[in-house]
């Protein structure tokens, strides 16, 4: 993120996920004085929560460890937003449970085979077979990173 962008971002005041129900309170009073001309144009504050979480009940978070997906922009320690209600399909990035541990990879479905494709040339794709203990746990919708 470059300097200019950061400056633009300063104008937004996102609210914390805790007070999603918060609405703007028109606190200009009714007595003397000229009412604020901005009152009629008040809108909800921007909410990152409603932008990133489309289905609250089905959304979970996970932390990335390791480098296997760096080319897709998933770095070590990034925060993943996972929506379990979405259906898995070819090319989506999914959190899977494979042989005893959670892993995040790109799903590749071809000719009836399921592959877990890393996004790092040092890692090899994994073919999922009947022998594997395998669950597609949820679909990754967003990555949140500290800069």
């Amino acid at each position, binding site marked *: 993120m470059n300097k200019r962008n950061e400056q633009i971002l300063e104008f937004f005041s996102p609210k914390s996920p805790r007070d999603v129900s918060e609405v703007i309170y028109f606190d200009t009073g009714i007595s003397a004085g000229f009412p604020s001309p901005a009152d009629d144009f008040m809108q909800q504050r921007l909410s990152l929560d409603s932008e990133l979480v489309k289905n*609250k009940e089905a959304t979970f978070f996970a932390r990335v460890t390791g480098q296997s997906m760096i080319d897709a922009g998933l770095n070590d320690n990034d925060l993943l937003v996972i929506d379990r209600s979405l259906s898995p399909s070819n090319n989506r990035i999914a959190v899977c449970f494979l042989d005893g541990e959670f892993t995040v990879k790109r799903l590749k479905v071809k000719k009836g085979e399921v592959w877990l494709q890393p996004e790092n040339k040092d890692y090899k794709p994994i073919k999922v077979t009947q022998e594997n203990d395998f669950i597609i746990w949820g679909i990754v919708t967003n990555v949140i990173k500290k800069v």
Partner: protein
Amino acid sequence: MFALVDCNNFYASCERVFNPNLQGKPLAILSNNDGCVIARSDEVKSLGLPMGAPAFKYKQFFIDHKVHVHSSNYPLYGDMSRRVMRILERFTPDVEVYSIDEAFLKFDGFENYDLESYGHEIRKTVLKWTGIPTCVGIAPTKALSKIANKIARKFPKETGGVYIIDNELKHLKALKWTPIEKVWGIGYSLQRHLIKKKCKTAYDFVQLSDLWVRQSFSITQWKLKKDLEGVSKIEMEQIKNKRAIATTRSFETTLTSFTDIKERISTFATSCAEKLRRQNSSCHMLIVFLRSNRFKTQSKQYRASTIVSIPFPTDSTLVISTNAVRAIESIFKKGIHYKKAGVILTGIVPSNNRQLQMFDHEDPRHKPLMSTIDRLNNKYFMKKLRLANQDLKRTWKMRQAHLSPQYTTNLKDIIKVK
């Protein structure tokens, strides 16, 4: 029509969502302070581990059978429960949350729906979105939907987790299949009474005369009988505010000094007052009790309780805590090894229609103070703002040796993916 949606082995299922390695393995969840078994997976049930088994007695059993043992993780269960209930609300506007893991759904105006496949859709959605398996029982009344649910649970292969009682034949079969002690709302004493009457199943119960049931028991049992007959008498309950609020705990170790007891009582009173404010109520009576360890029969036994009435309804932590501490002073005896204490608030009224009092009233400064405390404590983890007679160092009051992470309520605890 009504449906009862019940989560299968809810606590165990919650643990498994975030730790799929536990799938198919025997899993037991312990109560607060790791005292006894309060939830079991199917695998551990079939090993013969009883509900309520004291953990210390079954240590060897856990090792022998490779049972995974977890402390109860209420932040996780509470969050998962809320998710499940919200999802159910998408299927009908009429949802009664009956407990942490079950809810009644009412289907008014769903005549054109195939409710059985709707039930499967509910089940599938909850499972996919949250990972929690459920069973759905559908029937013309609430009491029958409970039975339908039991059938779905008992015969997963045949029913696919959904069973509907929608004709007379199924209705009769279900009643005859259900032993009287398994009928919803039939308590132990009632059951003994009914068995004397040779009433062994739900079917036998509905054969009794209405008059006899009403005369021998009460309107509640009559409503239950009608419900079982298929005539809906038990209605959906609105969310009721609790009529008593309690915080009672066994201590990790026995306590003897008054200072320690006072600290606990003040903490319990604080927690009660928070619960009270959360439901916008006030109280004007409180009960405190104190007792020794009744299992240590060789040491001196003592138990006492007392009731305090507060002249005005209050939801202030300060007032409630001061009164609770004063009350405990009056019953505390030296030289006893105390094991358990509690604070119970009663005489609960809605805060917004408190009666005005001529002479006694609460310090008006308490109200803004309490809302500030609640706001700050909600914002910061682990209740940072406390009364000065509470132990400031104490941050975790329970023994939870096998606690799983707070996967959904604490960013530090979320799952890690490679």
